[in-house]
């Protein structure tokens, strides 16, 4: 595990290098485990997105999933993120998250673009309070899209985390208004993706759609990817999912390291986004947000 600290934690990498050199030259390759397969698939998706779209950006929410995504992108592009990392900033994240962004934005040499969100008054007043707060992010995203003209946005959503996300495609077309038409999704098979958004519209690309929460943690541990300490238990509570301070709550937990998180996940019956207020306001709040272009 690798918390926010300045030493690079290279020990793990070096030991892996040493191991790989000891492997005798054989006629068959070492077999791939579950995490290897997930990684290879994500790398493939990243390379397809970079090859087929003109101007893409990665949405960096600073959470565990988007950090894994950046790591996977650096695997795909040999240490670099060859496109901007976009942080659509509500201004209401935890201080630990901003420290993390500023530190790793530099260390990973990201082309970091921080884009602000409009004030809450500018957002659909019929939405419940937390959803309305989250919808600010959708507006901020639309503004960033208009500003840079991206034709593809890479987002770290996963099928297992939320009901409507499970219906997603890997390359998911958005309408001119950034909206998602769940009833008319194109077929997607054999890793062939629909990568031609209509003029002025954009695509969402989901390189970790097939991962689970447990996969994210197991990979974070294996690769020694830094995390924000808020994910680890303190005084009997930890965050499973990090959003804005005012609409995210910690869950009861005693997990103080990733191994303990994995054991906890094996046993819990509480969903990952239980601490996200916006998922619980009304049955359709999340779907309405997603149709309107929320992640």
């Amino acid at each position: 595990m690798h918390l926010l600290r300045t030493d690079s934690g290279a020990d793990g990498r070096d030991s892996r290098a040493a191991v790989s050199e000891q492997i005798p030259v054989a006629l068959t390759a070492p077999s791939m485990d579950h995490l290897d397969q997930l990684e290879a698939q994500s790398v493939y998706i990243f390379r397809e997105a970079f090859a087929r779209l003109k101007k893409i950006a990665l949405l960096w929410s600073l959470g565990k999933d988007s950090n894994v995504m950046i790591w996977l992108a650096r695997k795909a592009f040999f240490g670099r993120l060859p496109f901007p990392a976009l942080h659509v900033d509500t201004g209401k994240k935890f201080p630990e998250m901003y420290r993390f962004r500023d530190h790793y934005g530099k260390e990973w040499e990201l082309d970091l673009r921080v884009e602000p969100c409009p004030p809450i008054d500018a957002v659909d007043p019929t939405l419940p309070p937390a959803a309305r707060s989250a919808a600010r992010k959708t507006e901020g995203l639309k503004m960033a899209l208009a500003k840079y003209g991206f034709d593809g946005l890479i987002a770290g959503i996963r099928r297992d985390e939320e009901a409507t996300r499970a219906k997603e495609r890997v390359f998911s077309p958005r309408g001119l208004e950034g909206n998602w038409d769940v009833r008319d999704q194109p077929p997607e098979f054999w890793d062939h993706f629909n990568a031609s958004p209509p003029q002025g519209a954009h695509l969402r690309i989901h390189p970790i759609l097939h991962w689970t929460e447990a996969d994210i943690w197991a990979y974070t541990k294996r690769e020694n990817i830094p995390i924000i300490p808020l994910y680890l238990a303190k005084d009997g509570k930890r965050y499973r999912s990090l959003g804005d301070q005012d609409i995210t709550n910690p869950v009861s937990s005693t997990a103080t390291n990733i191994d303990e998180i994995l054991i906890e996940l094996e046993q819990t019956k509480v969903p990952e986004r239980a601490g996200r207020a916006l998922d619980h306001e009304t049955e359709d709040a999340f779907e309405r947000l997603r149709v309107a272009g929320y992640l």
Partner: protein
Amino acid sequence: MNMLVTPASPATPNGTTSMPNGTTRPQVRIVIVGHVDHGKSTLVGRLLHETGSLPDGKLEMLKAVSARRGMPFEWSFLLDALQTERDQGITIDTTQIRFRTNSRDIVLIDAPGHAEFLRNMITGASQADGAVLIIDALEGVRDQTRRHGYLLHLLGVKQVAVVVNKMDRVDFSADRFKEISDEISAHLNGLGVTPTAIIPISARDGDGVADRTDRIGWYKGPTVVDALDRLEPARPLEALALRLPVQAIYKFDDRRIVAGRIESGNLIAGDEIVIMPAGKIAKIKTVESWPVTPIAGRQGAGRSVGITLDRELFVERGDIIAHASAAPRETRRLRARIFWLHDKPLAKGDQLLVRCGPKESRATVVAIEKAVDPGELESRENKAIGRNHVGEIDISLSNPIATDPCTENPRTGRLVIEVSGRIAGGGLVLSVDAGQRAVPVDIVPVESALRPDERSARYRHNGAVVWLTGLPASGKSTLAKALERRLFTNGGSPILLDGDTVRAGLNSDLGFSASDRSENIRRLAEVATHLARNGHIAIVAAVSPAREDRATARRIADTAFREIHVATPAEICEERDPKGHYKKARAGALASFTGIGNDYEVPQAAELVIDTSTRTVADAVDEIEQMLKTTGVLFDELVDLAANI
């Protein structure tokens, strides 16, 4: 339906908990397909119960609710109930359910039975390692049963278990079961699919799902849970020949990394490889990775890798890297068995975009055969392939591609078809008409005895391809000759490749069709690039009207490419007309002449734009020389002197 149901963790033999991601247990993905209302939801509900995957008390609660409402309990209620109760503890959706058998983690991918959602069924089933095809014992094999069976075959899902459901409705009749198993076996065998099991069940009552009850005492085969437990996870295709389709070439630093995913076979640094369809030979120098690089050891099928080669070759997205002794076939013509999802039927003569891995090519449908609705019992053959129908097509490709018949390689032997930027169908490559080409294994390029820096020290420039594009009579050849003279006078080594001159010899077999023009440009670019790699400045003067062709030339010459758009206004070009071409074209005597139509595609990012109507030849050459200095082709004398002081 996506539901991460987490039962009390089954303990592994040594008492430790297995990893939630299945690192100690194989994970298999399955789809349950079949005609609508044949009992998919009921089977899923029952499976969750039988595998102990339901939260404590859930079943009792639902049964109590049903009793209170005076309704008989249905297993399918479970799914509805779980769906609406996701807030209370279970994530659920209509895509994936997870549960466990004794030795497998099962991910159940939903595949809608309704014909309207065939594209979703295909999207789901294409990710599956195995399938359960469900048939109502009373209704028997229906159109969607046959259609789904056919699609499983086309999608390459080989492990198919058939369940004959609602056996309670036919009094558990062994005869009825045999009737249905014979019919579905015949259908599946006809497609080359052998069912792994055919199981009589009553999902409602539980017979055959986890237990062989007395009522099906005549059945001796596996239960559904047994059948799922025997599914094999997808195996990477390592035993087959190496196929590494190229996704991209990266030059983020001084490495030139060829990136892609190994679809089959394996590779290691030092391997002799061939790049298809061009048939160029090289050796793998390193296998690059991150954070540790380069990496030793063999890399097998399924890995996303990056390799560097021992020589500079033109490689592009869509090429396939293979071992020289077992290369895929290069072809412009192939036959495929496809399924069609687009509203407009596919007909002979249709223009398409075909994707074979990362390779794409425009294509024309040359012939259609065996176009049928796989749902119909008596398949009537049609001239066109309708929506949700299948057929065999012959297609002619505008660019050669490298591919394998699907029987030789299931990964590279398949393709998808796009219409208007949207996937409209897909299928298997049945056969390819291989092009007549020298066996690439005999081609061993000989590298020069001289190093590039030895030449550049003498010529005082690096190798380059200076590409002059523009309308006929815009002044390309004049500028090219003046530039050649200037560079030579300064001690350099310029070589002129004029489009017309080359057409007289090397390219005398080519005409002026779009594909011949493309080939003309490709050859010019290959020759020019060879000269540039050997330190010369190749000056190419060619109309090269198509943007795509110039992009190809740039890809071939890579960093050596310098494009100059000779942008003399069209009226002035026509006025000059030194070869009399405009006059002939106006008189209708010169077909395919670029200049008087609108067929010249103006460069958008040329290194230099020159209008010869507003300046002298000497001025223009000065400007070119300046550009070559600032872009690192010509050595700047002052800088050089300073460096030597």
